[in-house]
């Protein structure tokens, strides 16, 4: 079976220049880790497929902020030595599917796939992440919140590759926590999830970034909650999280995993827990 070797539309460029040239020529399906591409592919993945596996896109570099190559697998992120601000991202990295998916699946793929339940998104929103998009026309940066447009929709233009996720130096302050809620222990698509990053100085919250996933078409930050937390003492911070402030930003739906009403209620609890854990 399947020995028919019709010429596959497949390329595995060895340099970014070549990749971008190819990508400019025609529409390719871009293959990073394959963990979202193959499940949607039916019996076989049909081309044309541009394989990013030959590019050096999986480096994690520190310097001015943090730069994570677009094809960096989750397992590498989980195991990297990163500041405590990235703890939520690392916790999320350990919960993207099972270990097999973490070894193959990439941060850039997770973002380009743009699932409302993408585990990587809330921690990256809390880290003020930007995405670096390259094409033959050049290089541009976009805040992650502007990159994600809706379920399965991004601002990625034809011919562009998500080359890196960049976290600005200022966002590497503080400590973060990721809380994921699902109906089983492993391999679970979340009902709701929260990432919270808090910067504490002298017993007071100097800054808070809180993001919620799976409760709106795209994961969102919670500006009202963040404003309420700013200036709070560590002791009173959790109490400053109000249901109204959390729910104001959310627009959950009913699906097979939970009801919208449940998500609204659970999100409040998860935000409180994430804040408490980030402060602990």
């Amino acid at each position: 079976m399947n020995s028919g070797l019709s010429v596959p539309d497949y390329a595995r460029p060895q340099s970014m220049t070549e990749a971008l040239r190819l990508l400019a020529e025609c529409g390719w399906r871009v293959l990073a880790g394959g963990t979202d591409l193959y499940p949607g592919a039916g019996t076989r993945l049909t081309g044309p497929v541009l394989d990013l596996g030959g590019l050096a896109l999986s480096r994690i570099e520190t310097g001015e902020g943090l730069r994570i190559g677009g094809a960096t697998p989750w397992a590498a992120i989980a195991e990297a030595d990163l500041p405590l601000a990235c703890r939520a991202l690392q916790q999320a990295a350990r919960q993207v599917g099972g270990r097999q998916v973490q070894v193959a699946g990439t941060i850039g793929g997770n973002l380009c796939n743009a699932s409302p339940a993408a585990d990587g998104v809330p921690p990256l929103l809390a880290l003020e992440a930007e995405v670096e998009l390259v094409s033959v026309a050049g290089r541009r940066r976009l805040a992650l919140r502007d990159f994600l447009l809706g379920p399965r929709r991004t601002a990625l233009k034809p011919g562009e590759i998500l080359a890196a996720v960049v976290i600005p130096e200022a966002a590497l302050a503080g400590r973060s926590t990721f809380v994921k809620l699902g109906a089983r222990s492993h391999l679970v698509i979340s009902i709701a999830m929260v990432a919270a990053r808090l910067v504490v100085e002298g017993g007071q919250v100097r800054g808070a970034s809180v993001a919620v996933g799976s409760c709106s078409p795209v994961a969102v930050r919670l500006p009202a909650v963040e404003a309420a937390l700013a200036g709070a003492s560590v002791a009173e911070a959790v109490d400053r999280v109000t249901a109204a402030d959390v729910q104001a930003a959310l627009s959950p739906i009913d699906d097979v995993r939970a009801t919208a009403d449940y998500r609204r209620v659970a999100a409040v609890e998860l935000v409180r827990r994430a804040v408490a854990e980030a402060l602990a």
Partner: protein
Amino acid sequence: MIRFALNGVMVAVEAPPTERLSLMLRERLGKVGTKVGCDAGDCGACTVLLDGAAVCACLTPAARVEGRAVTTVEGETPELTLLRASFHAHGAAQCGICTPGMLLAAAELLTRNARPSETEVEQALGGVLCRCTGYRSIIAAVVAAGEGAWPEAPVSGAVGAAIPRVDGAAKVAGDRFGADDWPEGALVVRAVRSPHPHAVFAIGDLTAFRARPGVVAVFTAADIPGRNAFSVIPPFADQPAIAASPARFQGECVALVAFEPDAEPDLTGFPISWTPVPALSTPEEAEAGDLLHPNRPGNLLIEGRVVKGDATAALAGSAHVVEGAMTTAFVEHAYIEPEAGSAWMEGETLAIRACTQAPGMDREDTAAILGLPLDRVRIIPSATGGGFGSKLDISLQPLIGLVTLKTGRPSRMVYSRHESMTSTTKRHPAEMRGRIGCDSQGRITGMEFEGRFNTGAYSSWGPTVANRVPVHVSGPYLTPHITAKARAIHTHGPVSGAFRGFGVPQGALWQETLYDRLAEKAGIDRLEFRLRNALCDGDASATGQVLQATGIHDCLLALQPHWTRALAEAKGQRGRGVGVASCWYGCGNTALPNPSTIRIGLSPAGEVVLHQGATDIGQGSNTVIAQIAAEALGLPLAAFRLVGPDTGLTPDAGKTSASRQTFVTGRAAKAAAEGLRAEILRRANAGEGAVLSLEGATLSVCDRGASTRIDLAALPTDTRGHVLSAEASYDPPTAPLDANGQGSPYAVYGYGAQVVELEVDKALGTVRLVKITAAHDLGRAINPMLARGQIEGGIAQGIGMALMEEYLPGRTENLHDYLIPTFGDVPPIESLLIEVPDPEGPYGAKGLGEHVLIPTAPAILNAIRHATGAEITRVPALPHRLLDALGGLP
């Protein structure tokens, strides 16, 4: 050309660069140890190591392995060798379909962490699903592999010995399932299936499609040569192998296409037009709706009933009465092996090798559909990667059979995960309500029960479910007055069939949660309430059967210290709760014959050849039946060679269903072995107490100091190659049920009870299981290790039913939207094996396989209520339902 090191050997293979690595390994390199369960990264069965890192081969492009090292289950590494031995010793492989993935994920862990803890094992292996074991034995096996030590297995294979399964070596090497063997040149068969729950369809002109390169043949309902209607219960035969219009459920097969082996099996553009018709999706709609089958008014397939005494009067005179309802969902079997098999002609005989639980029934149904006499169909069960009831019904057998019969060419078919989930049977969703009463002393006075079961489009095991539920819905408690009715109603839902317990788990959810409320009303401890009402020897059941060897009392007594401890530990702890529930379950067909036949012989070379027709789908009948036969014959298990199952080589041992194999086939095996022993003793003129031994072809019979030697090589052989042989059948004695369901439907019942300790997160409506203690009366534990494996696996499925499993047609047809328990969802389990021998069972043994699932879900709900007061009346208790029951939702 892709070049890489496969298990340490450089290979070069032509393959499309984006071909899934799993496909390339299996199809181009013949490494079929890598199993495919979902093609989506949801199950982890295809896990291999790529440069030492665990990846899903189904998500890995072939081109990505260029120049790298791939390790599969066919490989040998120090870690794999150790893990294989430990898995085998711990019974960590049951059906074996997930085992290669488990082994490789564990091998990666051991290279990173030589002495992992339980938590580390759980984390590392969390990406692989297992539906049989409940994971605990796998965790133990990996931890022990890290430690490099585990207890020696017993040397003797006698009854009662916890020996590793006799087919265990194959399981840890990557066993050969339905998809793993096919004849050279086999056509690839694919089915066209209905995308609608109810639709009129018309197949257009097939000329152009048939002329496509690679298309060999197209078949529709019109091509079925025999009777295009089957059912596991022949009088109800109503399900077509290939449907003519209309299609009655989403996923129903309406046409078949056979492709050349090297062609792309592409169904795109198949000429068919669909006109969806309104579908009846609930029994309520269906009872008032158009008929699915013209001869079944009200879409009623059947009503089962048990009426004894006057329940209404008894309830009216009761000191305490509780009333309640319970609703359950479609539950998917979710075995990790999608249906698969191959077919070929052996002269005039059609041979079909496929996964199955019931080769004899497959043969009868396939022969009838294809218009063949029975002796022209041979069914050879492959290793079966889990069944749990669904593989009792035929699936692809008549389809590949038709293709091979019509084309004369071998064929093969492998269901996709989606196809497996949409087209095969489910557990019946149930809507149950009723009342139970007790007197002031807490003794049950009467019960009224009414249940409506969504049986889907076709009959399947609907009649069995409708009959079993009223028989069992009292639970193992003395209930003097009862009126219990269960109706199976057709809808345009998936076909509801057999699933571990045949409706009894649904009924137990209703009755056991109500008993908790009744105990509370009567002011009696919940375990004490159950003890007070537990059936005893000489009591009459709801069907009026006078019972013997009733083990429920012993099970509850064994749980008592655990119950007391658990209640004490939970006291004052936020969210902690403890629950208990019982089960009983009749082994074998309900008031119908279900014989098994076993043949056993001695070969001239001195082997004991056991023709073992009981299909082992992971539950262990290959081992247990052989242990029974060895015990009865008086020769060591090591001298045994198993033949079959194979309808061409083994007599019919019936189906692997209704927890009947250990009991029914075990009895047949005992009788056959005793027959052979008698023949040996007669030849040696020895008495009953003689000791047999085998040394090469010499059989020695030692009786009171005198030894007789029989040279087996010198004896003439029969047509099967045996020099001595015996065959025996056993059919459990039952009596038919009358119009009020009175009679003796089963010869043997098994009993059990479980205590669940858990913690409810009241803010989120989630549940964390802390521990489950399970006491099961299995009469005699023929193999305690396999028995514990059944308990742990049944509990895992009960957990799923209680907390997460809900099959929604069109919405949860994959293994990431349909959730089954993973590592981390099954808590530590303590199994208490209770042995109240049944005079009818072999060495006292009773069935166990289904019993073990029944108490888990109600015990969980009872623990939730104990923890929080919340009464759950619909499962699964997903977080939003539990939070709602806790009053936490607007």
